[in-house]
């Protein structure tokens, strides 16, 4: 196991000129020994490039990769001692499950008794014990992917285990089990795990630290809670959460925030930043929008355009001025009808404010009473 430090940039072009020529813009990042990380972002964001730079499949056009302080930039994946699990199962059909799992250990020349013990343990963790002596060929796709996962995790001496969208081919119910298994295995084996995915649920539930990427840039690194509650960049607000954060154009006017024609008073602590910014964007998650009376002070007036029953909650869409606002409502609350006028409270401890460069400038405001002399 190793601590991994990156200080690099990568372009697939010979002579990159501008930001868009880079698959990965200059970046400094560290992965702690024994940590569970996820690289999350849409296709083309650079996450797979980043993974390939760590494994050694791709050599950075600039900078260096260090494992425990040693420069490994020029080393191959084998020399770096990296285990990898891919999107589709990579198994030897003619071998038994046990032999498949033992393969990476035999290659390293481990003594048979050590191999047997380790294979047994991994098989047990992945609930493959009953199938150890079956041929891999006859197994279903999900069982094969379990073997792939097992092969990635079987060696104790790897620097890190890298996963590239490993649960894509797995059905939703089994995903739940496997995610849980991976987490347990991480707790027990303390391997450094780096997991690439476009699926926020997988990333957030698997990793201790999630790196959110877009257009070759890591825009935020944080825990699931940090990314959800304090997105540092509007992209994170949009990408994390389902549906993503609501964004409303806003400006400072006469001592309050003006949104969709309504003036909303904010906490004194925010006045300085917001008045200096002048124009900005208010971000609030659908989970944090609450319904109020259409006449309520400090609430936006909006017309309900859609109400969807998602089974476990209601998803309401309403138009406030030019902007569409979504709210996730508990099935126990009274649900308004399409066409109805409602009040929407958008200020609260989780409300975020973003400047012109889409970066967070302020956050958190309890609803305030309008001051008479504002």
């Amino acid at each position, binding site marked *: 196991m190793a601590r991994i430090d990156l200080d690099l940039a990568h372009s697939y072009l010979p002579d990159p000129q501008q930001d868009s020529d880079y698959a990965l813009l200059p970046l400094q990042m560290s992965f702690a020994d024994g940590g569970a990380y996820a690289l999350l972002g849409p296709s083309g964001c650079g996450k797979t490039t980043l993974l390939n730079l760590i494994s050694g499949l791709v050599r950075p056009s600039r900078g260096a990769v260090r494992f425990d302080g040693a420069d490994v930039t020029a080393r191959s994946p084998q020399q770096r001692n990296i285990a990898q699990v891919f999107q589709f199962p990579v198994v030897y059909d003619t071998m038994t499950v046990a032999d498949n799992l033992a393969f990476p250990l035999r290659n390293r020349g481990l003594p048979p008794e050590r191999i047997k013990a380790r294979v047994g343990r991994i098989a047990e963790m992945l609930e493959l014990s009953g199938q150890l002596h079956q041929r891999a060929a006859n197994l279903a796709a999900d069982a094969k992917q379990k073997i792939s996962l097992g092969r990635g995790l079987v060696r104790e001496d790897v620097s890190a285990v890298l996963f590239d969208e490993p649960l894509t081919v797995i059905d939703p119910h089994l995903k739940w089990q496997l995610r849980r298994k991976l987490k347990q295995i991480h707790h027990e084996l303390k391997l450094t795990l780096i997991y690439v995915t476009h699926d926020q649920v997988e990333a957030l539930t698997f990793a201790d630290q999630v790196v959110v990427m877009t257009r070759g840039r890591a825009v935020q690194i944080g*825990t699931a809670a940090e990314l959800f509650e304090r997105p540092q960049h509007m992209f994170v607000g949009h990408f994390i959460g389902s549906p993503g954060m609501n964004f409303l154009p806003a400006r400072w006017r006469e001592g309050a925030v003006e949104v969709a024609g309504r003036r909303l008073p904010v906490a004194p602590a925010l006045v300085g930043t917001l008045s200096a910014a002048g124009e900005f964007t208010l971000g609030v998650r659908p989970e944090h929008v609450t319904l109020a009376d259409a006449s309520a002070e400090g609430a936006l007036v909006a017309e309900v355009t859609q109400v969807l029953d998602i089974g476990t909650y209601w998803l309401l869409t309403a138009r406030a001025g030019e902007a569409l606002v979504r709210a996730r409502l*508990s099935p126990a609350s009274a649900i308004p009808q399409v066409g109805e006028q409602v009040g929407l409270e958008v200020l609260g401890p989780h409300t975020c404010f973003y400047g012109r460069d889409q970066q967070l400038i302020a956050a958190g405001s309890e609803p305030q009473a309008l001051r008479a002399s504002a």
Partner: protein
Amino acid sequence: MQLTLEGVAKRVGAATHLYPLDFALQPRAVTVLLGATQAGKTTLMRLMAGLDAPSQGRVRVDGEDVTGRSVRERNVAMVYQQFINYPSLRVADNIASPLKLRGDLDRAAIDRRVRELAAKLHIETFLDRLPAELSGGQQQRVALARALAKQAPLMLLDEPLVNLDYKLREELREELSALFAGGDSTVVYATTEPTEALLLGGYTAVLDAGELLQYGPTAEVFRRPRSIRVARAFSDPPINLWQGRVAESGIQLAGDARLAVSLPANATPAAAAEAGVTVGVRASALRVRPRPGDVALAGRVELAEISGSDTFVHVAAAVGPLVAQLTGVHYFKLGAAITLYLDPAQIHVFDARGDLLVAPQRSGAR
């Protein structure tokens, strides 16, 4: 268009891919085929399209028997998981191809229709490019636009969003719902994801291991799953299932929890009562804050997963292992004691055969 399957089954060699089923699709609405991989979704779609012939039974379109008729003789549009386009044709010509085949439209009309569809699917700026020059999401939009251009009375989509990014899926799904709602086609949409079925609304058919288990309005199937099998297939996270015993004025669960529910007298013969019942509780029905009338369930936190919009808490409880879905971010220490609360009116009860006895009461909707 009314598509009806009568006693349709599909066997390949000794294997049964689809057991005999009767299925009358809701005309001009979306029907979601929900089921795990190998549940029979694709097999069923291929029979509907005429790509395969059933081993037995009849397929009828508006009452007319079309069982032996091939896909070419039927008016069907299909979209697959893989993004399938004509690689050598520009995006505009890809979308225009079904319109040209019709032969009754002049060039200007075709052009107008192509632009209209491209605008709806946000690919209007790529009309002159080749499919290979587009991202996966854009390629699938082209395939969808071409399918929509056909204006076929039957449109079949086999997990069309599965190869796309999570966020892109969210976006495109929403657009598709709007497009389906505005169209005249009977739409069939296969997915493995319960949430996708709920977001698409319409009607849902639950398939499992080659059997059609239930068909009805999506919200109704979700709320009143006919059996444990349907409830499991139509839940994500998996529905919590606990064994219980019918006791005086309710159900007795392990660990001294008692749920006050009235079981329908006719549905609980003494034998069933003795054989025991299964209580099904959706993860979202469990809360950390009590309300009057709730039952308290004590346990220990095994794992807490924050997915962003929700926190999933896995608990070893006296009633059995359970998962609770809590909105937003919640912090739990692994191994800590936890009490979850449940409104007894929100449970499902299944008899010993696994058939539904009691469904949750509706709340919220006016």
